[in-house]
């Protein structure tokens, strides 16, 4: 050992460091593909557009409720509930209550329940 040439040890050490750094960089690149997949799956699975759209439809129902009364608008309520179950695999229910005073305005409470087996969503809004 003592007679070995010990010059260039820094170069060897730096080479080792570079190799280790490359190793970790490669690991990170390797993860990035998977991260994109899980993100995309998460976005696809979460029914953001469905819920927004359902709220819009329910607000349309509340307008019809005002216009036609609870008996005639019942059919629209049933449209939304039954088509949701049949075509969207989602259990949906919603109710419209009597007007009440909310911060000085007379608004109707609208309760929405949504469950598609993966995402459960409940909301009470005043409209």
């Amino acid at each position, binding site marked *: *050992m003592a*007679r*070995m040439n010990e010059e260039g040890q820094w170069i*060897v050490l730096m*080479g*080792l460091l570079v*190799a280790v750094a*490359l*190793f970790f960089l*490669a*690991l990170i*690149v*390797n993860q*990035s*593909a998977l991260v*994109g*997949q899980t993100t*995309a*799956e998460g*976005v*696809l699975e979460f029914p953001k*557009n*469905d819920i927004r*759209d*359902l709220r*819009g*439809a329910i607000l*349309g*129902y509340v307008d*019809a409720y005002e216009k*036609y009364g609870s008996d*005639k608008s019942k*059919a*629209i309520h*049933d*449209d*939304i509930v*039954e*088509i949701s179950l*049949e*075509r*969207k695999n989602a259990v949906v229910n919603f109710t419209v209550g009597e007007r009440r005073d909310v911060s000085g305005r007379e608004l109707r409470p609208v309760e929405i329940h949504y469950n598609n087996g993966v995402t459960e969503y409940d909301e009470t809004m005043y409209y």
Partner: protein
Amino acid sequence: MVNDTGQLYTMEGVAAGLIMLLTAYIVISTTSIYTTGDTHIPDMQLEQLGSDVLAMMDTPDKERGENQLVGFIKNDQGDDLRDRFLDNCKMRAGDADADLRAQVYLSYRTSDSVNTIPLSPADESFTRRENTVRVTRWVQLPSGSYSHIPNIETSRPHAVLVEVLLWRA
């Protein structure tokens, strides 16, 4: 007796060789990222695009005005609905997205069941094996008689579901 003066050099050579091999393997195998269909990234983008276009078409041009989507459904213009939908999807900078295809369906409730009818004629290139996404939109259909929608009750307004199957050929 074999001369053993170079043993450390040998070990170092072996270690360096292993490290280089490992690094080369990892670098080469990871810089080529596989984005096959089952990563769902294109699906996610397509679904978002379709939802946005439907939302846009469901918005009236003016206050208390009628929106495009209801107009197309009322007047049995399933073809126009599909073409306008695709035009809106392709409205972007860069090359035209000529491969985009769509098929429009309508779901509505009759007195005893939920019916789904195609609004646009079937795409002849559709093999049912495409990687499709489905986007939907609730539409308020006013009361009236619609001869192209079988068995729909005419005496009341409806909430109907517009479903668009969207894929790249």
